[in-house]
């Protein structure tokens, strides 16, 4: 078992815009060790979300290789990628992305529908995940009946319920006030420390980045500096 959870080598990524092909990354290398908690900062349009999408198997690189847990994943088919995401990745979005028609518990249950677990086992897992984020008493609430912070906690429960190795967060506190943001970031920190989840988090907020173990600055498709947080 290698030390690193993810290794990116020589990554190039271009988007086609009309006839032009716009490069976002060229020859990007990156290593994310197990149990890392990395914050990624950088100006708007620098490619933070694009990087997260590559790490999460939502998008594929134009060049280079990505190894996840020792296996190539840049060359997987679309269906294989969907299975890869279901097994390994938990996503946390800026706007929570909960299903408005479903209760908190049903939202958390969704990733489990992709596993072999039966209804009873699923219910147990959902209960545990909601307990981890401190929302056991809101299981039956619809997202519209929850505050922004509570909705993001439901989203975190959904991200961890199938026990993925990697959590990817794109501006998870971008829509929350400072106090609530602090709660959410503390929760991510706990998941990283106590449950050993590897976390990559994109943020604009230096305060938020302080909760991570290290911060990477992305600019013009390169990591310009690395600084270890406390």
């Amino acid at each position: 078992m290698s030390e690193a959870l993810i290794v990116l080598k020589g990554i190039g990524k271009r988007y086609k815009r009309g006839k032009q092909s716009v490069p976002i990354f060229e020859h990007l290398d990156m290593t994310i060790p197990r149990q890392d908690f990395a914050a990624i900062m950088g100006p708007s349009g620098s490619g933070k979300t694009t990087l997260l999408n590559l790490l999460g198997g939502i998008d594929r690189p134009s060049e280079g290789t990505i190894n996840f847990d020792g296996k190539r994943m840049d060359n997987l088919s679309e269906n294989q990628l969907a299975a890869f995401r279901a097994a390994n990745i938990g996503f946390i979005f800026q706007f929570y992305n909960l299903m408005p028609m479903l209760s908190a518990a049903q939202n958390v249950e969704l990733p489990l529908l992709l596993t072999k677990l039966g209804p009873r086992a699923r219910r147990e897992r959902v209960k545990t995940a909601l307990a981890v984020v401190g929302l056991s008493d809101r299981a039956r609430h619809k997202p519209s009946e929850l505050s922004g912070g509570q909705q993001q906690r439901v989203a975190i429960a959904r991200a961890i319920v199938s026990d993925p190795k990697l959590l990817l967060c794109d501006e998870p506190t971008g829509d929350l006030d400072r106090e609530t943001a602090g709660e959410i970031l503390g929760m991510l920190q706990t998941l990283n420390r106590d449950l050993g989840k590897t976390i990559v988090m994109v943020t604009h907020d230096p305060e938020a980045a302080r909760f991570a173990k290290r911060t990477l600055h992305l600019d013009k498709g390169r990591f310009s500096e690395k600084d270890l947080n406390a």
Partner: protein
Amino acid sequence: MARTLAQINAVTSMNLRSIPSRLWTSISTVVAVGIATGVLLSFLAMSNGFRSTVKGTGSPDVAIFLRKGGGGELNSIITREQVQLIEEAKGIAKGPDGKALLSAEMYSVVDGIKKSSGTKANLPLRGVGPNAVNVRRGIKISAGRMFQSGTAELVVGRAVSKQFKGFELGRTIRLASQNWKVVGEFEAGGSVFESEIWSDIAMLQGLYRRGSSVQTVRARMEDPNRLKELLAFSDADPRLKLDVKAETEFYANQSRGISDLILYLGWPLAIAMSFGALAGALNTMYASVDARMREIATMRAIGFGGLPAFVGTMTESLLLSAIGGVVGTLFAYLLFDGISASTLGSNFTQVVFSFKFTPELVVQGVFLSLIIGFAGGVFPAWRAARVPLLAAFREQ
């Protein structure tokens, strides 16, 4: 497999539960599909009812003699000598008096006033003798009595007295410049004869100055297979040379044109309305997919496949259309089933018939609605299955 079903289930139920947030466009789709289905079914029921009325007329063992090439009864003419020749033909059943069982008849057209609209319409006035009832089956005087020979008395079919003014029992009515007394009403098993007025043949021959000639002769055959012999008999004698047809065939031919006409009006109208409904369904379903774009992308990011998104959208479309189909069917049924109408039959006379719904018609209506649902759902569903995953990261 079970997991795929669980995914489809989850996505579909989310999909259906989100319909209330698109309530008005969904309702308008239901209504549009309902109207298209209802219109189609009404025309089908009309055609069906007309056809079954006309088809139910006549028996296979009654032969009808007409002038060659004349077409209908109105244009036909048969002389007294020809009638006497026909009496000699082999294959005709014998009546109680031991003579050939045949009925020589006059056929003319008179004006009636429709109760519903107050407008004029043509009614057949048939001049008959006593054998008219014996040659046909199922003619029954349901009120009053039969007319007396040699008098200006009438009996009227049940549909005539129901739909036209002035034919109540005991009333005197002026037809063909003659005052008639209505003395009876008859049933004829729902056949075209119920849309006719019958009087004494001699009275009509006098009124129309036809002397002793008649227009048609009906003969009860010993069995339906004797028709060939009658045809051969008529062809062999140069004095005859008449058309001979089974009565059932005669009416079936007459019904075809009109019921086809109803269908040719009904289907294009229903299809035009279906296109309207289809446009509505497409609009609703694209709106549905657009509204759920981020949800669908999020599900895909979590690891769900494109199939559940496709099935969910398709199900929503089929469900809305099926509801429309059922509502349209129900409305058409409640409004029209069993309702009487009259339309031009053969010889531009009125045939009274009822709209008739059958299970097959309902199946056709529901089928139409499901086709609209399918066509309106398949492209939006395809779009749903191909929502870019990156949409999960965008603000609504």
